[in-house]
C-alpha cells in the first residue's frame, strides 16, 4: 500500500520537464494506484542521490516447469522500500514484428495491473514485452493469466532467446523473405529450448528482410538471418529520371557511394554492373521508387555476434551465403540442430557460439557441423603462414 504522503523526489521531478516523454511521469502514473511503483520511484531517487544502483543479484525465481522467462530482483534496502523488496520482471514473448491491436494491448495492461507494478518496457532490447516488477507470489498467477490470454514467456538464461525480426513483408517493399512468418515459426518450434535452458549459454536468433538489417541481427544475434537477392536489381529508368529531375545528385550521392564501384550515371542513364553489386542496398535506399531488389530472393545466414563480455564484441560472419526463400526455415532448423550439437559437445560454460568458433577455429567448426568452406565466409584468406595441415593431406 502506498504511504499517505509520497516521499519527495526532487531529482527525478527534474526529469519531468522538457520535450521528450518522461519515464518519471510513467512511473508516477503507475504509482498513483500501485505501491510497488511508488517505492520504485523512491528507490530510484535514492540511486540518483547516491549515484549508485540499489538492486541485488536476483535469486532463482520463476514459474512452474519453466527455467526461464523471469529475472529475479531484490533491493538492498528492503526495510525502506518494502514494496519493491521483490521486484522480478517477466519477459513475455512479443508477437512477431511487434504488431498489436488495441485490444491485445489492453489485455496485457489489465493483467499487469492486477499482478505487477503496472510498469512495462515496450520492448526489451531482445524484443520481449517486459513486465517490470512483481512479487514472487504473483509470478505464477501472472503467467496463467498470460497464457489464458494467448501469451507466453520469452527466454532468459542459457536458453534459446526470444527470436525477433523486422517488419518485413508486412510493410516493407525490400523484404527478401517473410521474416515474420519465419520468426513466428521458429519461436513455436523451439518452445522447449526457450523455456528450459539446455545450452552452455544464451542463443539469439534475429531475422532482417534485407541488408539494411533493421533488427541489428548482425550485431546481436548468435544466428543472423538477413534477406538478400541473387539476380539483378530491378530498375525503372523513368523513375530514375524523376529522381534526377527532382535534384538528386546521382553521380555523387549514389554512384560514388556504391561499394561495388559498379554504377555509372551518364547524366541521362544509369547502368549497374550487377555482377559486381555487393547488395548493400544504398542505391535502392536512396531511390526506392526506381530501384528494387531482384526477384531471386532468399537469405544469408551469419553466425556468432555478441556483446563484448569478456573476449571482445563480435559481429556475425557468413555461414551460408545464400539460401533460396523457400528453403530458409528448413535450412536454419537443420543448421541449428548441428550447431547446438557441436556447442553442446565443445562449448565451455558461458561460452557463446561465436567465442567457441574463435577458439576452435572456423574450419574445425565447419568440419563439426558438416559444411564446406566457401570463400564468401572470409573477408580475405589467411595472411598468416602457420597452417596446421591435416594428416590425411600429407604423406
Amino acid at each position: 500500500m502506498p504511504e499517505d504522503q509520497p516521499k519527495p523526489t526532487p531529482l527525478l521531478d527534474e526529469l519531468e520537464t522538457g520535450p521528450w516523454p518522461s519515464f518519471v511521469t510513467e512511473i508516477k502514473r503507475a504509482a498513483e494506484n500501485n505501491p510497488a511503483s511508488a517505492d520504485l520511484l523512491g528507490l530510484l531517487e535514492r540511486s540518483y542521490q547516491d549515484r549508485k544502483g540499489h538492486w541485488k543479484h536476483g535469486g532463482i525465481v520463476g514459474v512452474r516447469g519453466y527455467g526461464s522467462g523471469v529475472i529475479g530482483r531484490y533491493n538492498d534496502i528492503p526495510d525502506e522500500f518494502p514494496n519493491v523488496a521483490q521486484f522480478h520482471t517477466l519477459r513475455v514473448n512479443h508477437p512477431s514484428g511487434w504488431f498489436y491491436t488495441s485490444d491485445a494491448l489492453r489485455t496485457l495492461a489489465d493483467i499487469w495491473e492486477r499482478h505487477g507494478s503496472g510498469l512495462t518496457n515496450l520492448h526489451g532490447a531482445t524484443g520481449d514485452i517486459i513486465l517490470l516488477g512483481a512479487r514472487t507470489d504473483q509470478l505464477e498467477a501472472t503467467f496463467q493469466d498470460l497464457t489464458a490470454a494467448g501469451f507466453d514467456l520469452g527466454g532468459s538464461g542459457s536458453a534459446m532467446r526470444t527470436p525477433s525480426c523486422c517488419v518485413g513483408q508486412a510493410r516493407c517493399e525490400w523484404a527478401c523473405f517473410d521474416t515474420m512468418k519465419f520468426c513466428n515459426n521458429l519461436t513455436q518450434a523451439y518452445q522447449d529450448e526457450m523455456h528450459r535452458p539446455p545450452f552452455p549459454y544464451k542463443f539469439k536468433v534475429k531475422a532482417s528482410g534485407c541488408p539494411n538489417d533493421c533488427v541489428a541481427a548482425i550485431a546481436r544475434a548468435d544466428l543472423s538471418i538477413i534477406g538478400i537477392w541473387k539476380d539483378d536489381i530491378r530498375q525503372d529508368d523513368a523513375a530514375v529520371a524523376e529522381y534526377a529531375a527532382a535534384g538528386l545528385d546521382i553521380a555523387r550521392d549514389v554512384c560514388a557511394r556504391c561499394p561495388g564501384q559498379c554504377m555509372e550515371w551518364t547524366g541521362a542513364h544509369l547502368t549497374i554492373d550487377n555482377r559486381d553489386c555487393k547488395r548493400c542496398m544504398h542505391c535502392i535506399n536512396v531511390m526506392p521508387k526506381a530501384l528494387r531488389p531482384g526477384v531471386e530472393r532468399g537469405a544469408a545466414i551469419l553466425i556468432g555476434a555478441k556483446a563484448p563480455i569478456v573476449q571482445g564484441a563480435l559481429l556475425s560472419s557468413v555461414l551460408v551465403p545464400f539460401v533460396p526463400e523457400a528453403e530458409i526455415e528448413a535450412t536454419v532448423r537443420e543448421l541449428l540442430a548441428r550447431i547446438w550439437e557441436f556447442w553442446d559437445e565443445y562449448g565451455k560454460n558461458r561460452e557463446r557460439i561465436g567465442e567457441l568458433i574463435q577458439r576452435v577455429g572456423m574450419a574445425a567448426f565447419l568440419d563439426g557441423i558438416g559444411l564446406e568452406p566457401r570463400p564468401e565466409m572470409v573477408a580475405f584468406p589467411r595472411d598468416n603462414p602457420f597452417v596446421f595441415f591435416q594428416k590425411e593431406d600429407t604423406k
Partner: protein
Amino acid sequence: MTRITDIGPPHYEKFLHPLIKRNYGHWLYHETLAPGVLCHVAESGERIYTVRAGSPRLLSVSTIRRFADLADQYSGGYLRFTSRHNIEFLLDNPANIEPLKRALNEAGFPVGGTNNSISNVVHTQGWIHCHSAATDASGIVKALMDRLHPHFTREDLPAKLRVAVACCVNMCGAVHCSDIAILGIHRKPPQIRHDTLRKACEIPTLIASCPTGAIRPAVVDGKRTVDVIEEQCMYCSNCFTVCAAMQMNDPENDGLSIWVGGKVSNARSEPKFSKLAIPFLPNNPPRWPEVVSAVANIVDVYARHARRFERLGEWTERVGWPRFFELTGIPFTRYHIDDFRYAGLSYARSTHMRLRP
C-alpha cells in the same frame, strides 16, 4: 483448468491491419510525407500510412491504454512498436494523419524518428532494474533527448544517427555498433566483502571468472577468501556476475564513456563497431550535463561536416580520426589506443595522413 504452457506468442496475423494482410509481401515503394510519416504503396495501388512517435519505452499501463485509445480513434485499432521502441500507428485513411499527429503531440509523444534523423535511443535497465548498472539509462536518455529532440522531429542530419545507452559493459542493446553510444563503466577493481564471500560464492568459480586472471586466493582474518591484483583488473564486472561479494559500485569512479562511429546496416560500408571518443565523464544525475553536451557537440560537428548519406563512422573514416578529435575538441589520450587482443591491428599501419589540421 489445465495449465497452459509452451504456446508461444500470439500469431502476428491476428494483429495485422486488413490492408496490410491484403498486400502482405506486395509492397512497391514508399515515400516520406513528413518526418515521422511514411506512406507505403502496394503493387495493388493501396497505401498504408505510418505515423511514428517517440516513446520513453518504460510505459505505464495507463499510457498503454492511451495508445490503444488513439489507435481505436485513428488507425482502426492497429499499431506496432519498432525495433528502436518507437510506436507506429498504421492508418489506411490519410485524413487521420494530421489529427493523430496533433493528439500525439498533445499527449507529449513527438512524431518523427524516420530517415535522416536521430531516432529513439536504444537503452537498457539502469537503476530501474539491473543489479549490474554502473549508471542509470532512462535518465540519461531523457536528458539527452530533451536536448536532441529537434533532430528527432526533423530529418536534418546527413544520414541516420543511432544513439544507444548501456548501463554496463554487458552492453545489452546494439550499443557496440551505434553511431553514438553512451556506456556506463566502472574504474576501480571490485571491493571485496570478505565477510559474505565465503558463504555466497564458490572461490574456484570466482577465480575462473576473471578474464585477466586478476583474482587469486587469499586468507583474511584466518578465512579463505580472494584478493584482486589491481593493475590487472579491467573493471569488467564479470566476477560480480558470478559473486555478489565483489562489489563494483563506486559513486566517485563510476561514470560514462562515449563511443562513436558504429553502424549495423550494410548500406554502403560494412557494419562497424563504435570507437572510443571520450574515456570518462562523471555520473551526474539527474541531467548528466557533461554527457549531454558532449554528445550534442559530436552531433553538431557531424551535422556540419559530413556529406549527404554519410553515417558518422563513414565520415570519420573519410576525413580521418585526427580530424574528428580536432573538430570536436576532444583530447586524444592514451586510453584511446587499444591494448586488447586485436590492438596491433588498430595502429596506423600506413603513411596515409592528413597533415594539416
